[in-house]
């Protein structure tokens, strides 16, 4: 039977020209998702930051120095065929899953047994291990979100694109007799918290959604962006992420991937080979 409905592919577009690096997205994400923290957060290598803002520089001396802040959530990779994300394909206990209806990579906390193979597989460092049990300051446990379960020691967690918000929005829509959500009804907390409006979230498969218009994903080539100034992190690895970036600066776009010296930004040789039409 032919499927009538087109699957959704939720994704994010982050305008790096607009991002000021304020960190509001990180704070909003932690509060929304009950992300645990330590008393001393000096060591960032064992801190949990589902959304992490990186600071990039063009490595040029003053006065030509330029910087750029790059927020990095989970990329919710699709891989070269549906669901073959770097992490999902390796998890031995099916504790992380690729949702074909939404394109969201989930983490099943009660099934993860903490082997950390998914962390080894993820080139974006988007996955975090709970080295400790969460400890909340006195009284803070009362302000935790009831919609997101806190995680215990010994398991992996990561950005879920605030999937609980999707479920709540769907519930509301169902009550109103609708089966489809409007664009504004499902937005991630980082998107709403960003004061400069640098983050846009929506369905990449829906031409009416802003994310689609911003990057014009080419679904014949694994969602590769066709809009000017749009790029994805580590595009040529074939992870096929659903987080896109916009930057007017060439050095920023080049920092998004690894290039050989003789390659043009955005046009690496291996991807150009793929784009050539098949011979008759």
């Amino acid at each position, binding site marked *: 039977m032919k499927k009538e409905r087109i699957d959704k592919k939720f994704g994010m577009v982050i305008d790096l020209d607009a991002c000021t690096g304020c960190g509001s997205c990180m704070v909003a994400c932690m509060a929304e998702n009950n992300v645990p923290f330590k008393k001393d957060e000096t060591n960032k290598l064992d801190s949990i930051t589902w959304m992490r803002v990186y600071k990039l520089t063009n490595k040029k001396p003053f006065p030509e120095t330029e910087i750029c802040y790059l927020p990095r959530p989970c990329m919710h990779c699709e891989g070269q065929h549906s669901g073959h994300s770097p992490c999902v394909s*390796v998890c031995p*206990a099916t504790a992380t899953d690729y949702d074909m209806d939404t394109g969201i990579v989930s983490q099943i906390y009660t099934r993860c*047994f*903490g082997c950390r*193979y998914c962390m080894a*597989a993820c*080139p974006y460092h988007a996955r975090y291990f709970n*080295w400790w049990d969460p400890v909340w300051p006195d009284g803070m446990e009362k302000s935790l979100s009831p919609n997101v379960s806190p995680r215990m*020691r010994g398991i992996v967690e990561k950005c879920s694109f605030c999937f609980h918000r999707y479920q709540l929005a769907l519930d509301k829509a169902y009550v109103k007799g609708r089966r489809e959500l409007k664009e504004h009804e499902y937005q991630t907390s980082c998107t709403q918290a960003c004061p400069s409006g640098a983050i846009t979230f929506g369905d990449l498969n829906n031409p009416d959604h802003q994310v689609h218009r911003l990057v014009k994903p080419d679904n014949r080539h694994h969602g590769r962006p066709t809009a000017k100034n749009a790029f994805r992190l580590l595009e040529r690895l074939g992870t096929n992420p659903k987080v896109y970036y916009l930057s007017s600066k060439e050095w920023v776009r080049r920092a998004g991937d690894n290039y050989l010296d003789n390659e043009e930004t955005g046009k690496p040789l291996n991807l150009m080979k793929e784009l050539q039409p098949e011979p008759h």
Partner: protein
Amino acid sequence: MDSALIPKGVKRCSLPVFIAGLTPVVLVLLWGVYAMLLCWLKGLNQTNMNDSYGFALWIWADLAVIAIGGGAFFSGLLKYIFGKDELKNIINYAVLIGFICYSSALLILAIDVGQPLRSWFIFWHANVHSMLTEVAFCLSCYFAVLTIEYIPLILENRKLDEIPLIHNISHNMHGIMAVFAATGAFLSCFHQGSLGGVAGVLYGRPYVFREHILVWPWTFFLFTWSAAAFGPCFTILITKITEGITGKKLVKDNVISLLAKISGWMIFTYIIAKIIDTFYWATVTAPELGFVWSDFFTGDRSSVLFHGYWLLFAEIVLCGIIPGLILISKKHRENKTLLLTAVTLGTIGVCLNRWTMVMQPMAMPVMTFDSWNLYIPSWQEVATTILPVAYGIILIAISFRYLPIFPQEVELNPIKE
């Protein structure tokens, strides 16, 4: 005191001397057990692993002990399937070493996972596309096979053998051992390979990602090949160490020479395959992903110290080509010093290979704005990694004292009245 348990025709030290000799090893074992309990009770915050270095010393130790324990399946294959009958004189020891290596690997895995009580999820909620699932299934099954291979050896203890039922069970188990050896070889090929696949399928990590043949990356075949090649080196090395400690010759030279020769040719051919793999990776795979070869070995000063070109040279030339060349030459492998050098280098070589396949991809940045990571294990990680070594020494000592591990020992060491 325990003379009734000691095999006939061999001489062993007195029990107090034996216990005194083992005491320091037991203390090390207890230190490891303490660290293990800390990890289980307090969690993996006892380690120096972090979110960038999720795989570290323990995973390396796992891969390394399984590789050097490969002598068990390969010797079994040679004896029972290819009919190299001389190897019956070392097969018991190869099985014992394999048993120790595989039980150690399972123990380390049990410490390494964040929620050990959920370990069974890997079987219950198995993701059949994951190489780690294949590892878990084959590893468990092969450990069961090794246990079955070790049991008849225990039943051959002098006192146990006096019981007719046990004697008959032991005798009949020996009779069907070829079936288990074949099963073991089959399972081993897959789990050694899937351990290579664990790294090779990581397409987000260009240092270890390799092209595929059907569903298996190149590393699948290289890991099986290297375990078969270098595993016998470790079996010979431990045999020589045992001979040194006991002051006895335990296995005839022709047996060692045969195993060394086969190991030598396996190493030689493996190294050719490894060089081809490295060349293809450096000139085709890496550039397609936007990397030049030097990106993998050059970072800041400290990363070069830990992850520089020297690792590749040590693995392929010093601990690969050299032991291979020594062992394939009859003249050289019959020289005791050269033989010992070759098997030691070979053992280090395969461990180095596993080291680079685990540590290097964790240390190396993939995003251009990321940096190299360095990792120094905590004492708890070191203690729990040494724990299996202490356990292995104790099990070998007890087995050597009470079981007829070496069939040629009586002949080579006649007791003078």
